Structures are given as structure tokens and as C-alpha cells.
């Protein structure tokens, strides 16, 4: 079966005044229909660039190498019109900040109806009916009244639900959720997580969850892909990666998570050093300078991709037997 999303050897370089910035380096990843994938990494890891590429939303100064196929069609070969259609019809996104993602001057109902402009063959009344039904499905009480409200009248949690409803109304094949709970409080976050879990049944396709929160990944995702400095360093089934990480960066990242540290500690583990500057050319492994297990070869030669049995892989010299 062809995967829903097939990314092969994808590199993205931004042209900047100071020289080229290599934001994404040789990333290969497939996402199957029905799958929930967690895309994890810290600032500067390239996870947002990769998510933007999936939506064909790259800025004009981005140069693309490699392949990104959505349903068998090369996304970068599409014309502007076809890309727009894809964003309204094939791919939908939920963003981090529910406070800026809605038009503040327009009623919720009008916005939810507009989101459906790609759906042909249904009238305004039907679109309105679908919007009300979807608000109900995402757990919003009194949806008819919400349709008439403006965004400022809604709390953060309700707005994020409205945005999830908006995304689901387009019946996307690929739903990209970019840090969907970061701006929310603990108890509201739990409600939205429960809703996202339930959304699996409402999306006839795949969900990509972009996050830095490993707990969220463990909660929601079948598979996880870990990014570091523009590279995909490890990917595999969530349970596998979280309990038996193979890449030293994944290990270090999991060790830093205060939620994973059993007893109260005063000193937290850290990852010394800094993420390498994407504008500076590099040989060898991106993580070598901060890696506790690095040896000579790590500084000179790019690490090989080492595959495991369960469709998992990691890029690390240490894994070569």
C-alpha cells in the first residue's frame, strides 16, 4: 500500500543575507493512513520546517531538494492553485496559539462556514448545519449560541476546540497539530488531549503531532520521529522509542524530562553545549559535540541509518555492530 505521505531525502535550505541556512537535512519518513505520528525536537530542530513542508507552506526563500509525495503526488511539483486546493481539502492544521488563529472581527459561525468553501455541492444552510454538528462533536456545549459569538468571548480551551472543529470540517486526509496544547492550562490541556485522542476516529487519514512534549507523544502517538539540528535522528513505535531509546540524543532528551525523574531531585540532567548553527557547514554527526558516547569517527563522517526489526531506525555510529 502506498503511504499517505512519503518523504525521501528531503533537504530544505533558506537563503539568508548571511548565507544559506540548512534547516532540514536529508530527511526520509513515511506516514501511513490511520497513523498518529509524533514529531519531536527542541527549538531549531527543523520540526516546524518539516511540518510547513507537509502543508506546502514554505516561504519564498526556501530551496527544496528531495521528494515529498502526498497520496502519490509530488507536493513540490504542484502549481500554486493545486497547492491551495490541497490546503483546503487534503491537509489541515491546528496551531499552537488559539488566540491568534481566529479572525477576531468575525463570528465563529461565519468562519466555520468559510472553512468549508472547498466542499462542493452543499449550500450555506448545510454548511451551517455541519458546523453546528461538529462543534457538538468536539464537546462544545450550546453550539448554536457559539456560532453567533466572536472569538474574544471564548476561553482558550474553547477556542482550541473551535479550531479543531474547523480543521475536522474540511475532512482532511492529513491533520497537522503544531503544539496544540502548549498555550493551555493543565486541566484544559487534559480536555484537549482527550479530544485529540477522540479525533482519531474523525480523521480518515493520518495525524501528525508536532511537539516538544514527550508525555503528549506517549499519550497520543503510535510512532515518534525525533529531530535534532535539522536531521531525523531516530524514529520508531512510541512504546519502543520511549522505553528503549537508541540514539544518544533521544536518551539525553528523555533523561532531561522532569516528569520522568522518579523521586524529587534538586539537580536536573542537562545536555551540555548548544545546538550547532545551521548556517555553518558541518561534517560528521550533528550531535557529536554534545554526545557522551562520541568517538573520532562521529566528528568526521555522517552517521549511517541503522534499521531495527520493528520499522524503527536511528542514525548513529555507535549502533553499527
Amino acid at each position, binding site marked *: 500500500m502506498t503511504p499517505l505521505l512519503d518523504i525521501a531525502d528531503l533537504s530544505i535550505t533558506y537563503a539568508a543575507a548571511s548565507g544559506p541556512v540548512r534547516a532540514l537535512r536529508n530527511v526520509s519518513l513515511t506516514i501511513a493512513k490511520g497513523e498518529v505520528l509524533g514529531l519531536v525536537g527542541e527549538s531549531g530542530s527543523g520540526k516546524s520546517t518539516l511540518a510547513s513542508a507537509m502543508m506546502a507552506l514554505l516561504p519564498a526563500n526556501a530551496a527544496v531538494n528531495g521528494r515529498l509525495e502526498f497520496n502519490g503526488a509530488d507536493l513540490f511539483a504542484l502549481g500554486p492553485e493545486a497547492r491551495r486546493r490541497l490546503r483546503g481539502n487534503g491537509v489541515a492544521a491546528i496551531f499552537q496559539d488559539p488566540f491568534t488563529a481566529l479572525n477576531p472581527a468575525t463570528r465563529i459561525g461565519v468562519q466555520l462556514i468559510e472553512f468549508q468553501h472547498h466542499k462542493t455541492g452543499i449550500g450555506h444552510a448545510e454548511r451551517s448545519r455541519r458546523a453546528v454538528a461538529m462543534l457538538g462533536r468536539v464537546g462544545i456545549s450550546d453550539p448554536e449560541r457559539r456560532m453567533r459569538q466572536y472569538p474574544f468571548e471564548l476561553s482558550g480551551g474553547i477556542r482550541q476546540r473551535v479550531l479543531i472543529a474547523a480543521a475536522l470540517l474540511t475532512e482532511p486526509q492529513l491533520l497537522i497539530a503544531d503544539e496544540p496544547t502548549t498555550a493551555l492550562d*493543565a*486541566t484544559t490541556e487534559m480536555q484537549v488531549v482527550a479530544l485529540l485522542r477522540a479525533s482519531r476516529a474523525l480523521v480518515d487519514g493520518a495525524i501528525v503531532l508536532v511537539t516538544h512534549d514527550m508525555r503528549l507523544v506517549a499519550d497520543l502517538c503510535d510512532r515518534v520521529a525525533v529531530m535534532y539540528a535539522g536531521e531525523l535522528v531516530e524514529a520508531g513505535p512510541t512504546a519502543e522509542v520511549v522505553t528503549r531509546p537508541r540514539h544518544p540524543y533521544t536518551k539525553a532528551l528523555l533523561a532531561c524530562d522532569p516528569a520522568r525523574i522518579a523521586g524529587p531531585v534538586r539537580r536536573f540532567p542537562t545536555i551540555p553545549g548548544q545546538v550547532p548553527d545551521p548556517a555553518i557547514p558541518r561534517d560528521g554527526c550533528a550531535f557529536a559535540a554534545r554526545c557522551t558516547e562520541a568517538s573520532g569517527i562521529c566528528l568526521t563522517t555522517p552517521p549511517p541509518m541503522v534499521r531495527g526489526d520493528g520499522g524503527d531506525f536511528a542514525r548513529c555510529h555507535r549502533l553499527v555492530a
Partner: protein
Amino acid sequence: MVLEIEDLVVRYKTGGWAGALRSKSQRHVEVLAGVGLELNSGRTLGVVGESGSGKTTLARAVVGLAPIAAGVVRVDGMRASGWGDGPWRFIRRKVGFMFQDPLASLDPRMDVATLVTEPFVIHRTQGIDRRREAARLLDLVGLPARFLDRYPYQLSGGQARRVSVARALALKPKLVIADEPTAGLDLSIQGDVLNLMTDLQAELGMSYLLITHNLTVARHVADEIAVMYLGRIVETGPTDAVYRLPAHPYTRALLGARGGGERVVLEGEPPSLSPRPHGCEFHARCPIAKPRCQTEPPAEQVIAPRHRVLCHFPLIQPQAAGTA
């Protein structure tokens, strides 16, 4: 006692001409509704709660940056209440403040050396070699001297936090208020900043009032914890006891929100403050609320020495001595 707060009430006026039409009690929003807490020297008190619970208002009130309607703040023995400049000037000299967003709280037109020594100018400290003092402060927070001439836009998130720590420490405070010191930081950097704060406390002996919504961070770094809901402290006690055996249903839900134990998902969101809910202000969202909770505000109950809860039906049986 470095910090002592008694029955602190903070009210904000609700704006607009429509306010004048409302009944008197509705013309104000009571953001803090009688908060009391104590913090000993060299200790860390974590204040946790959701947005709107009053955490940040509490932090600001400690240095007189909120309209205090009633109650007393005592810092290092100096007593202050209400508005007015007198005692607050003294208090602000004893308190270092790390604001929530370090990049927004650092003046973009000042270099780091000027930023970290600004407190000396504000408090008119004489006989200070600003440059040398700035280098000393940067050294304290682990930044090399070359950062002295940098501007805020040249700092990473972690470096900006270090600068805001350095600035908070300039006047050798007895108390440092850290408002969400790790919000927006990557996990690996978060540990760095927290370790730095712990080391500095061991070295300099100041107390921390740590304001955070991050319960996992609070669990590791706070000696004592205070859980806020709608401007009241609903549970307080030694961190270990509160996390192991939460007595308030709200605390239990918050902790369940973040891994471990069975999960209790709360319905809805914190209700409006104007007017405040009747009875126990948590009753509408409480999974174990009884009729009494809708009408009668709960009194504080003592679960164990120092462990107190504001609930009619605490999850842990109070001591025989009972209500305080």
C-alpha cells in the same frame, strides 16, 4: 521569616461606564481573596495554579505592584500594606524579581552590563563600579564577560534567563520571586536554569517564591507548595506530602493532569470572578461536591502539621484537632 503574607486582598476595578450601573460588589474583581503564606530563609515555596488563579498577581503584590485592598505583606521584618511608596521601596531592595518573559522585560536598547546594574541606579547605590559589578554578576550566573556588551536581541532564551537571574541578584536580595522562570525553554535548557537557581540558593542563601503552572518542575525544586484557585490558596503543605497525598480534589485533578496515578479530568474551566461563585468556589467543577459545598464556604482544615486544605470533604482525613 523572610516573607509573611496575611489575608491579602487585591481588587481591580472593572472598567467602563457600565461598571457604574452595577451593584457595588460587582464593580471590582477580587483577584486575591485573602491569601496567607509564610516563607523561611533559604527555602523555596512553589505557587501553582492555572491562569487566572492569581499567581502572578500574588507575585506582584509582594513588591507592591498590585492594588492591595486589605492585608499585610512583611518582607524581612518590614511591614507594608495598601498603596504608598514608603515601605515598598525598602521591600523592593530586598526582593529580586524575575519576570515571566525575560526578553520582554529586558530593555532592548540597553546592553547587558547596563541591564544587570540598573537596580543600583534605581536604588541610588553609591560607590559602585558598575562594569566590575556587572562582570561579577555575569560570572555568578555562568555567562562569560564578553556578554557585557551584548544587547537582548543577541541572547538566546536560556541566556536571557541568566541575565534576568543576574539582575534579580544585583542587590543581594533575601527573596527572589521567579515568575515562570522556565516557560518557553527547551527541556535541556530548563534543567540548566533550574540547576543554576539551586546552586545560587546554596551559595547565597536567599529564598525563592517560585510561580509556575509546571507541576513537575515545582515538585522537584520547591520545599513547600501552595495551590491556588480563583485567588485563594486551597491547599498548602510540604511538597512531598501534597504530591503524595493531595487533600483537595482540585490538587488531585491538577496532579492527575500530569502523569502518575489515576486520571481525573475536570469538566469545564475556572468560573468567572464577578460575581464569585457561592459556597465553595470549586463546587461546580468538583467531582465529589455535595449540597453543602454549594452554599457554605469551606473553612481551613489541618491535615498534618503545615499541611492545610480549604475543603469541606478533604480526600485525606484531618487530624483529630480538626479545623484551624
